[in-house]
């Protein structure tokens, strides 16, 4: 059968490459993925770079430079379905920590000739600039979830990617709650699941790598942290990390800033 396979493109904005690597890391499934799609553009994997339009575009990274802005607008035009992958693309990433500071001050300190640096004041998610069809969370993303999204697209079904709290996955695994039994700060109750409760499975509170869950009550969690004996500085810091600029986490860290 000569059915034309959908064309897949993988793009990178400002990021560490970890999320797009998770596609190559899917060794056991990669051949099946390639059986279903044509890898049309993926510079990290292949020097064969086909021109658009593409059927699916995966975008990693946040928008931090004027060039990123131009690129993402072109990518949107080139892709029928645009999926952003990872904390940078969906929430601005760890580099969004600069959003609370003066970027020009940073460039002066870091670079000998800051006049050559062209950057935006803030690191923002792709969805701040163009319409995004689907967001896959995580820092980094879970490769099985990425395959699930591609799989669902190929089989024309809804991806099984729940948006509830990490707590549900802890309970499905039989983990004992580290907040209730060990007095640890844990972002699990307000964090989007996807990592299969990785940190609590090793007796450590959740850092919130997958960003806010579908209905995060961050202020109730923060007041519990206070009751457990943690100070505002600790609370600001735990909310301000990989997904610190995601709205619910940003507001809570700002509420505990002073």
């Amino acid at each position, binding site marked *: 059968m000569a059915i034309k396979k959908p064309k897949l493109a993988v793009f990178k904005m400002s990021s560490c490459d970890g999320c797009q690597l998770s596609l190559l890391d899917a060794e056991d499934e990669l051949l099946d993925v390639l059986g279903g799609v044509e890898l049309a553009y993926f510079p990290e994997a292949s020097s064969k770079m086909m021109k658009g339009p593409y059927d699916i575009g995966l975008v990693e990274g946040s928008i931090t430079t004027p060039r990123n802005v131009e690129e993402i607008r072109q990518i949107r035009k080139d892709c029928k379905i645009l999926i952003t992958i990872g904390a940078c693309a969906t929430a601005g990433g760890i580099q969004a920590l600069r959003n609370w500071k003066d970027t020009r001050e940073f460039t002066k300190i870091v670079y000998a000739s800051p006049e050559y640096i062209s950057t935006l004041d803030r690191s923002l998610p792709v969805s701040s600039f163009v319409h995004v069809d689907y967001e896959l969370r995580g820092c980094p993303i879970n490769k099985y979830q990425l395959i699930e999204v591609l799989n669902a697209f190929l089989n024309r079904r809804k991806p099984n990617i729940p948006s509830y709290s990490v707590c549900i996955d802890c309970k499905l695994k039989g983990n004992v709650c580290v907040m209730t039994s060990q007095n640890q700060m844990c972002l699990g109750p307000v964090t989007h699941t996807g990592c299969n409760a990785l940190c609590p499975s090793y007796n450590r509170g959740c850092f919130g790598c997958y960003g806010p869950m579908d209905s995060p009550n961050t202020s109730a*969690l923060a007041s519990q942290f206070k009751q457990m004996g943690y100070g505002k500085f600790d609370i600001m810091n735990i909310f301000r990390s990989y997904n610190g600029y995601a709205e619910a986490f940003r507001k809570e860290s700002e509420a505990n800033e002073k």
Partner: protein
Amino acid sequence: MKTLDKINLEKLIGILKQENYTVIGPVIKDGAVVYDEIDSIKDLPEGWEDEQEAGYYRLKKRNDNALFSYVVGPQSWKKFLFPQKLKLWQAVREGRGFNIENSNSAEPKYAFLGIRSCELKAVFIQDKVFDNGMFADSYYNNIRKNIFIISVNCTRAAGTCFCVSMKTGPKAKNGFDLALTEVINNNEHYFVLEQGSEKGTEIASKLETNDADDKQIKAAEAAVKNAELNMKRTMNTAGIKELLYNNHDHPIWSQIASRCLSCANCTMVCPTCFCSNIEDTTDLTGNHTERWRRWDSCFSLDYSKVAGGNFRTSVKARYRQWMTHKLASWIDQFGISGCVGCGRCITWCPVGIDLTKEVENLRNSPKTINK
């Protein structure tokens, strides 16, 4: 009634294993008592008890060798009867059609050692949910029909227990094969044994037991009474259905929602909550598909997502739904309350929301409608 010593309790585990039971009992894992497979009484939490309050759980060393002085932990027995994740069936494409294959031919044979009275009640409640004639759940019933139940009566109450109010404990009255009450007096350490079924009597006949004398029976009764007398929490259940039905629009729901994380911990630890989600998966080729059942919760937003929208978007609506179902509409649906007073939802709520207090607050509020 008989008495049994520790040596014969060990023997009991051995006999059950010989009869091909997988023996499940309390074990310590990551600072809590959980239920898992055991080989010997050495696996039991000897000399430990639990301290529980709203949003708080710690294990504490005792100064004796009690095996069953903990109360209940974060898990319940439902994970064995109603597993967290279960493949229901799979299908494989064949030509223009497909073949459906059943994935669950295995019928595990469990012996539950240490099931508490409230937990046993929770199993009866889940029986009504899953073993209800026309809509009987074969996966549940295939496991349920084989279990051998050794109940252990509580001799302590945790800070979050309220089984007395719910009339579910602390002593198991029926539904067990064997029931034990642990007695530790001065230098004596024994278990008063009751037989609740023919199978229980048959297994007990293989053990070396003595007839319990009056003093021993009284000591066991006093130990259970101790749990009852030390139970601090209560829930007034008089007219609770009307209380909840009449106060659907009470401001209390918004107050609770301001604290509720909608994280679903309460429903996951609850021994009677039975909600699940069905997921269909495919492999990349689309030639193989599987249908999975996974625990879900009325607190997750997607749970109430239907074609056209979501009918419980606010956390207020979700908490109200949970509590009203658990304490009121459950009675209309199954003829019994959905709450057994085990206190898990109070202990394991990360922010310590206490449903007994919320019921009390609703009862005492001047804005409450009493019809």
